[in-house]
């Protein structure tokens, strides 16, 4: 009876044969837990290679799948598509899904350490600042080009005068309060 677990990523191989980091209670590669009798043996085995752990792939892959599920390429149906027959996902779930996707990418980046850690830790802050700048820009831009219509006020006054004349002739009381 094998005292090690079988690797899920490379079926048929014992976990000790996975090329991964140090064999801990949980194999980095496939996450299987070790049977207790093998913990000591596992802890004693030194790291064989420094190859990237597949969680780096799983993070972005999960993010991609989540986004694909949450935002399918839906066409605007030309027919009178009234109520959506199936369950309509609440908008907050889409936002949470995006946040989860972003966090998993961030965590994956942290794990790879290909980018220096100090930068990676600050990435969310950069994101928030960028979002804030975008928001401020949109507000300022919109404020600069806010559509106004001063001539409409004049036209409205003319309409009011015209209406009052007509209605007074017809016997409607149009005295202002």
């Amino acid at each position: 009876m094998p005292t090690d677990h079988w690797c899920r990523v490379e079926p048929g191989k014992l976990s000790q044969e996975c090329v991964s980091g140090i064999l801990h209670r949980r194999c980095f590669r496939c996450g299987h837990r070790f049977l207790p009798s093998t913990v000591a043996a596992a802890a004693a085995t030194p790291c064989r290679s420094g190859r990237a752990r597949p969680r780096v792939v799983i993070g972005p892959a999960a993010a991609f799948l989540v986004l694909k599920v949450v935002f399918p390429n839906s066409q605007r149906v030309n027919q009178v598509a009234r109520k959506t027959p199936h369950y309509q996902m609440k908008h907050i779930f889409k936002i949470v899904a995006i946040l989860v996707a972003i966090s998993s990418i961030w965590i994956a980046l942290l794990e790879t350490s290909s980018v220096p850690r100090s930068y990676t830790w600050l990435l969310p802050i950069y994101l928030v600042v960028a979002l804030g700048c975008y928001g401020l820009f949109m507000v300022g831009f919109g404020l600069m080009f806010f559509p106004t219509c001063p001539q409409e006020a004049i036209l409205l006054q003319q309409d009011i005068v015209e209406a009052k004349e007509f209605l007074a002739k017809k016997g409607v009381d149009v005295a202002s309060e």
Partner: protein
Amino acid sequence: MEAAAGGKRAYSIIVPTYNERLNVAIIVYLIFKHLPDVNFEIIIVDDGSPDGTQDIVKQLQQVYGEDRILLRARPRKLGLGTAYLHGLKHASGEFVVIMDADLSHHPKYLPSFIRKQKETGADVVTGTRYVKNGGVHGWNLMRKLTSRGANVLAQTLLQPGASDLTGSFRLYKRDVLEDLISSCVSKGYVFQMEMIVRATRKGYHIEEVPITFVDRVFGISKLGGSEIVEYLKGLVYLLLTT
């Protein structure tokens, strides 16, 4: 081609009023002026105005006909959503237009609403003040700033299908309006936001038409701190429940 089939109308225009003695007469005149060949009716839902608005409406009915102007009064101020519902009960039109009675919404845009609906077959046509051919008059910088900031926030968070969320100059298909009102629970202008957001979520086809908005209530501060708090609460509510 809006042939009146036994009193059935094509368009019902619901105008909730409260103390709009002068404006209601002008609005009725302008609607009749700009929709000459359209089969419509105006439903005035008055919330027991103390200034005699209902008497003016009765005089207007003498001029234009009681079948074109319907007065459906209520005993006191009971809220905007219920005013629409009340008007809907008495509406016989296939399409329902809602607009304000204080002349900030000009009836001259009604033909463009109707035309847009006919061209695109939309379920909801909403007027927007924030596009190039639309516009606003009578707002100071502070008001414009809060409006723009609120709009950017709402657009980012909610992704509604419209550029003007708090506007209340809209045309709905009748069953669409019934469906939306029955699923909305907010009050005030958050109610308008909720209507359009729910319409987007339910997959209704929404189109927009530029309108101009002349704010005639000068000098009255309509946007205090409590309004902003109410807006943010409404935004969070819509974020979580739609």
